[in-house]
């Protein structure tokens, strides 16, 4: 009845997927909050050493926030937002904890070593993020794939849902994006 009633998350999601920036601004902190809390509660529940699957986290956040309104249509859009939020969460965290080494050459790797172990603190998220921002300037689509995959933890199938591209295209472009990013970040000879 009341037209001034606060909008539900689903309505906001729908509006933001149609380009409503205000709605998007409202949705983001909510998702952010939820993902952060879920991450925490996972850590408390799970035994140490367990590798948390990002996609499960995102799925669960999605279900918790949208409940009965969870359907395929707004799922894609949600995942897109969640990936952005994960990126932000992790970056805020990395920055505030000063683990970041700044500047170029932050990615420590040689030809023989497998490059980055995910648990290694050497992975400089800030540098990756900055490089990704540069990629966004020249190639929005590939940058989004990276964001969804690396920060959102989505599989190729899930990404194809969000971006409406074939998984073949996504895998191909992911390869190219990785090459570009690594090229940017590797220690210069």
């Amino acid at each position, binding site marked *: 009845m009341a037209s001034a009633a606060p909008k539900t998350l689903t309505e906001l999601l729908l509006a933001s997927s149609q380009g409503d920036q205000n709605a998007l601004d409202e949705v983001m902190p909510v998702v952010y909050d939820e993902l952060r809390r879920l991450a925490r509660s996972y850590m408390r529940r799970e035994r140490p050493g367990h*590798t948390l699957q990002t996609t499960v986290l995102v799925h669960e956040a999605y279900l918790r926030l949208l409940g009965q309104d969870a359907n395929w249509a707004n799922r894609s859009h949600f995942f897109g937002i969640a990936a952005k939020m994960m990126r932000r969460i992790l970056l805020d965290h990395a920055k505030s904890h000063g683990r970041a080494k700044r500047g170029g050459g932050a990615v420590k790797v040689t030809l023989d070593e497998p*490059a980055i172990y995910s648990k290694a603190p050497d992975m400089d998220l800030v540098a990756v993020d900055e490089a990704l921002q540069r990629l966004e300037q020249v190639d929005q689509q590939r940058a989004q794939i990276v964001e969804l995959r690396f920060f959102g933890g989505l599989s190729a199938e899930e990404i194809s849902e969000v971006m409406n591209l074939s998984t073949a295209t996504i895998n191909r472009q992911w390869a190219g994006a990785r090459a570009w990013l690594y090229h940017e970040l590797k220690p210069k000879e």
Partner: protein
Amino acid sequence: MPTIPWDQVREVVDAVLGLPSDQRSPYLDQACPQPAVRRYVESLVLSYEQAGQFLGEPALAGHVESLAQSEPDSWQGRRVGPYQVTEEIGEGGMGSVYRAIRVDDQYQKQVAIKVVRSGFDTRFALNRFKAERQILANLEHPNIARLLEGGSTEDGQPYFVMEYIQGQPLDQYCDNHKLTITERLRLFRTVCSAAQYAHQNLVIHRDIKPNNILVNADGVPKLLDFGIAKILSPESSTSPLIQTMTMVRLFTPEYASPEQLLDEPITTASDIYSLGVVLYELLTGERPYRFTTRKPDEIARVVADTDPEKPSAAVVRVEESNDIRGESVQRTLETVSGTREGSPEKLRRRLSGDLDNIVLMALRKEPQRRYASVEQFSEDIRRHLEGLPVIARTDTFGYRSGKFVKRHAAGVTAAALVVLSLTVGLAFALREAKIAREQRARAEQRFNDGRALAKSNLSEFQDAIQNLPGSAAARHLVIQRTLAYLDKLSHDAAGDREIMRELAAGYQRIGDLQGNFSGPGIGDSGAALESYRKAWTIRESLAAASGHDLAELKSEISLLHSYVRTLLVTGNTRDALRMATQQLALAELVAQKQPNDRDSIMDEARAHIQMGWAQGGNGSSSSTRQLTEAMQHDRQAIELLTPLVNQSPDSTPLTGMLQSNLDLAYHLRKNREFETSLKVYDAIWSKTNGLQRLPIVAQAIFYNHRARLFDDMADYVRADKDNRKSWEVAQSLLKADPDDLVNKINAAGNLGTVGIDEARLGHVLTGKKKLDEAIKIGEQMLADNPYELFYKDLLLIGYSYRGEILCSMKDFPAALQQYNRSLTAATEIAQHDPGDLESRLNIAKLHAALGVVHARAAQYPEAKQEFNIARDNFQELLRLRPQDAEVIYASKATQDAMAVVANCSTQRPCKGVREMKLPKLNN
């Protein structure tokens, strides 16, 4: 820094990375002739090869731990009333839980404080929170964590204080203390008493699992975290009973019942299921299902579709596994029995037989087939412990494979069954005529009096509903008033069973009216569904409290009957099938209790008929398997009804008999078993003495149905004959009662059908004349009754027929006009009932029809435009119903048509246009 723009090379980069290394060089020779570009690309390829595991794993993986630990917590150390928060101990359903100590107490009593988290939809969360506080305040039981007090902080955040339970989760406690099976069972029974108590207070826990059952140092188990409990009693201050149903999916998947995972209605039986999982784990050391991932979809699929291994078999298996928690575990009979019964063989023997059956009964996929109450569950365990016979039995074949909860393929279509078409609106008349005519008194006067609505008292409303005025506008008004009244009443319903019964019956009746089943036509089925849903919610809670007594069962069956019918009518075939299965289960239950009772047999037969309808669906997109299953149900119904028909002269079983036979014939027809279908019609004919035994309305329906069969068999002559017979009956009915709207509309519908058939057989002018007359009647009726969508439906088809005729007469502008009118009607109907995919299909077809007409008129650009729209609509429908044969067929026809006109670019007649078929609307 490279100066080569990325967008120039990205495609090349993608491509070259996909090539094996020996093919890269030759490829680059071709793709990158300029050396600078090539160098750049090669450096990227090199980078790629050096990248190794770069970005190989999602970023979160390495950072969760520190992320979790670094979270600043504003509640730590905080004073809340007489308590001080010491640490956070968990995330509850709607907020966080903290441990706190009472500071001014020498004993330093520990409590748990639960707060609502701030942020999203605070109002909703607050309501839920208040509700939870309310539940806990009401629950006082030695095995349920007690509520001590509640309050709000300075900044308005509500919290409540609970007994702090220090203890171990149930499963760990049992293992650590090496409890025997008997001891575990006794402990479990204590937990059951807590759950039973909650159920009696109309609360369903919904998240029962070992972590929510803590056993303290004294060995007393306590049930906690009713955080997502479903409340069955309404909150006093806010929304009515019904709105508490919208719950976020917060539960632990490994312990959740199939209905929870599939987002279906939750009952106390869901708690019984979860208790079953807990018991399974206590007895065997593992859970009944194993999952490889934690994805909700995967878990739902496993739980709904596979059967658990019986406990005595599960313990015997040696298993090395990574359980969900990522630990490697080697489980053998030895290790398991070490904490349970001592010797492996003894454990296996202990579990086999009764205990197997008891656990499996609690774990049945169909809620109704589990224990009827937690108490019954607990009692069965007691009987086992005392060596008495138990209720639980080995599951019979028919139910074993979790048929109830099978996921249905996406290819289930929209409804618009034959029985719905305007010309077979008689089916409605037949089904409901008896009730409608008897109860639909000429209450216009009474309505105008205002007496019926003067007093706001339920019985007055019921009165008004019983004798409802005929005019749709008046009906509408009464519905609105009654709904408002019912919603208001639900506030006061709080646990009062009598009122709740009234409510449920009231909502059901309203649903009937909204669906317009007691009158002509299809009304607001969406609203009807909503009302039925409300009624069902209440019925469930009543069942929870008072179990499955006979009277309640019958009410439930009656409600389900209407509910399912409406679901089918609106194309919610999946839900309909689910509910119909419940309806059948309940009906069978009643039939068991009252084996020779006529009413229960009728109910059972009706349930089979609905199952058949739900399975057979729209026929054209049901698989042979589905149709075969549908026919099985039809035959079952026939079998049940045959003795009844022979016994009693009452028309009700006869009606049912006719219905099931007609459905059988219909399913046979849709399965293209034409000869067999015809035989069924012949059988009806002979059994009813050439239809003489049937009420006249039924006769008309018979002819109508059989006409379609002849149509399919391409025997247009016999089809025409039957259509005319149907029409004859319709006319005579009309003559007998010319004011009756049902009669009028049926007569008009039949007239129209006869007209188009005549035209199709070649007598265009006479056919058109009849059709015109039929349309005129329809338009008149619509003008008098704008609420009645049913008339729009008739006109929708009528206009399209007229368009077809005009097109064949080559009057293209007029044909376009008619099809456009049809399109308008279809659009209005679609808007009114968004769940109705049938009208959307009609819209698609109408655009295709317009395309064909334009093509015939050599207006190719317009034709292309219409075909494009049609194609887009079909695509949308295919997305929703990927296996719908009807949609696929029509869509293909449009594509073919598009191919034909693609080559037509001039104003000259084009090859293939004449062969284009005008799509027929669903009828």
